Structures are given as C-alpha cells and as structure tokens.
C-alpha cells in the first residue's frame, strides 16, 4: 500500500520521455547508436506534495508508537550488531570495561521497529528519540579455546590455550521517548556534535 503510494509519487515527479519518440518524426536518418538509449527527464517541482506525503507517514508512525507495546532495535555494541527486544540476553566476547550490576544506555541504535513500522538510522538514530537500556548481569571467562597454528613444510607449530572474557547483558527496555519528527538543528552524539 505504502509502496504503491511511493511509486505513484515517483512516477508523477519524473516523466521519462524516450528521445526516439521525439526524434522519430523529425529525422528520417536512422542513426545507429551504440550506447544506451538516451532519455530526457522532465523534473516537476513537487516539494509540497512530498512534504504532505512525508508528514502523513510521520503522523501515522507517531500514532503507531503510542499504541505499540513491544519494540525491537538493532544496536551496535563492541563492534557487533544485535537485534534486541525487552528482556533479551546479549553476550559480548572479549575485554569490555563495564562491570557487573552497571546500568547502561546503549546509544548506537541503528534501527528501531514495532509491529507495523520501522525507523532506520542514517547510520544511527537520534539518541534523544530512542532509548535502549541494559544491565550487565554476568562477567565470566569463556571455556578454554585452542589456538593452533601450523605452517606446512616450515617446521612451525604453536599451540595456545585462551580463555576470553565474556560479558552478559540484559536488555531492560527499548523505547521511543518522543515524536520522531521532534529533532534539533544541531544533534549531539556523545562527544560528537553533528
């Protein structure tokens, strides 16, 4: 439904007229072109229609957020991306400073979705709008992994036994805290200002 609307909009804004139709009446000379057929585009100024269309979508999403009870998010933690919802467990491999019992706000949220809408960040969503909180539940060492390396014909063999740190995170909540179109002119992301 939404897709169809979009397609309609696109077809309205750009009218593609193939040149051979224009040229057919004009020239009797059949010139062979070896490149891709050139088409001429007439771009119609449709900013008002665009604005109306996007405003409608934003309004429907805002309403959907109010009625929705469970959201999911794609978060970027320690170099990996996880799809999380409330009460999920996420394991982080390797050294990671947060300690047991710490409550963390995950700020790199790449995507948030509900039952019938999805917000996609470019690349991350506004940290004021989306709130994903987590608790560190468990810090442990992994089982003993064997790192074995060998170079053939070079009399080289090494065997190492490694136990990496493993941190378990409990996702407490995924929320959209305000209207999605409520954005500042200057965005702040941690120490960065965008």
């Amino acid at each position, binding site marked *: 439904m939404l*897709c169809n609307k979009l397609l309609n909009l696109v077809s309205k804004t750009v009218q593609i007229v193939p040149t051979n139709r224009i040229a*057919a*009446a004009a020239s*009797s000379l*059949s010139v062979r072109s070896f490149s891709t057929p050139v088409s001429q585009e007439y771009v119609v100024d449709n900013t008002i229609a665009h604005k109306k269309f996007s405003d409608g979508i934003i309004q429907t999403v805002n309403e959907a957020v109010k009625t929705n009870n*469970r*959201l*999911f998010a794609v978060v970027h933690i320690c170099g*990996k991306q*996880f*799809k*999380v*919802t*409330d*009460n*999920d*467990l*996420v*394991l*982080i*491999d390797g050294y990671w400073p947060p*300690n*047991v*019992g710490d409550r963390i706000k995950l700020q790199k949220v790449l995507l948030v*979705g*509900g*039952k*019938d809408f*999805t917000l996609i960040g470019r690349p991350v969503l506004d940290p004021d709008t989306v709130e994903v909180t987590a*608790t*560190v*539940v*468990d*810090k*442990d*060492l*992994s*089982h*003993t*992994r*064997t790192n074995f390396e060998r170079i053939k014909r070079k009399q080289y063999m090494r065997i190492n*036994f490694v136990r990496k740190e*493993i941190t*378990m995170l*409990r996702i*407490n909540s995924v929320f959209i805290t305000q209207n999605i179109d409520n954005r500042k002119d200057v965005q702040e992301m941690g120490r960065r200002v965008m």
Partner: protein
Amino acid sequence: MSSSRFTPRGFPRVPLQNGIGRYICQLKRVTLRFCKSSGSSRGIRDFIETDLISYAQEHPGTAVYLKPRRHKSPSFVAEYLNGEREVISCHNFTAQEMIKWLNLYTTRSGIPLMRYAKMWHTDCPSIQGVWSPFTNKDPALNITQFPSKELSKPVWEEKSATEELLEMINKQKISDENDDDTQKVQAAQM
C-alpha cells in the same frame, strides 16, 4: 587439550531472571581455606590481611568464611544461589592473583562453564512476523491456476539476432513510409 569437545554446549541463560528488575550478586558464600604457616598460603594470608575487609564491605550479599587448616594447600570455595559449588586452588598465589580470581568468581552467575552456541538469547524472536517468500507479494498469486503460461516464462528473455534484424527492418520500413508521406505532402503543397 581440546576442552571444547568435553565442555557441554548450551545457550546463554541467567538464573532467576537476574537483571530484569535489578541485579543480584549470585555468589552467596565464599570460604577461604589456608594454612597459617606454610609458604604456599602466603599470598592468601597477605590478601586476608590487606584486602579482605574491603572485599566483604563491597559485597554485602556474600558471606565470607575463613578456615585455617594446618599443612594443607590453600583454596577457596565459591557457593552460588543456584546451589552450584566450585573449589579453586590458590597454591602459591600472590595477593593480586587472589583479588583477580575472587573477583571473577563473584561476578559469575554460577551456571557451570559451557560453550555458547549463540551470543544472543530472546524469548520473542520476531515482532513483525517471520519472513517467508510470500510476504509482500501480490495477493493475485493466491488464486492463480497452475501451471500458468505467464509465470512459466523466464524472467528475462534475450532477443535473438533474427528478432533484432526483423525489428530493424520494420523500423526502417516505417521511416521510409514516413518519408514517402512527407514527400507526398510536399508534392501536394507544391
């Protein structure tokens, strides 16, 4: 050697839904067993002298017991809320090593060591519904009679050389006709 073959494989879990409301330290009791005289217990004795009180203050949820025993190798026993019990030897440990290992066993959840099959666990695997090849497809497919001629065609068929030639000839014919028409019109105008 290859411990991954013998450690059981499992999915990540946490006892008693820990962390949903608040976090609770799962270590309920720690017993430090050491000798008062032997050299191998020296590190653990140092630890008891310097850091044990601060450790006990930082972790009010765990009970700390000291158990001196003559001429035996030092160790500590960690007991968890889920009933698991682990004995860790601290033979010839320094005080720093004691801190390190004791901290590790306090932050653990007490579930026995396992190989994690996944780094993620959820009770709600899908919110927008599981994708299938038919999601977001035209519902007209539901009432199509199979085998259908339209759908049996290849998605992209390339034109053969003959077809292309025929097309070019047709095009030329049309343009010739156009030329004739224009000539006729011009003649009529003349």
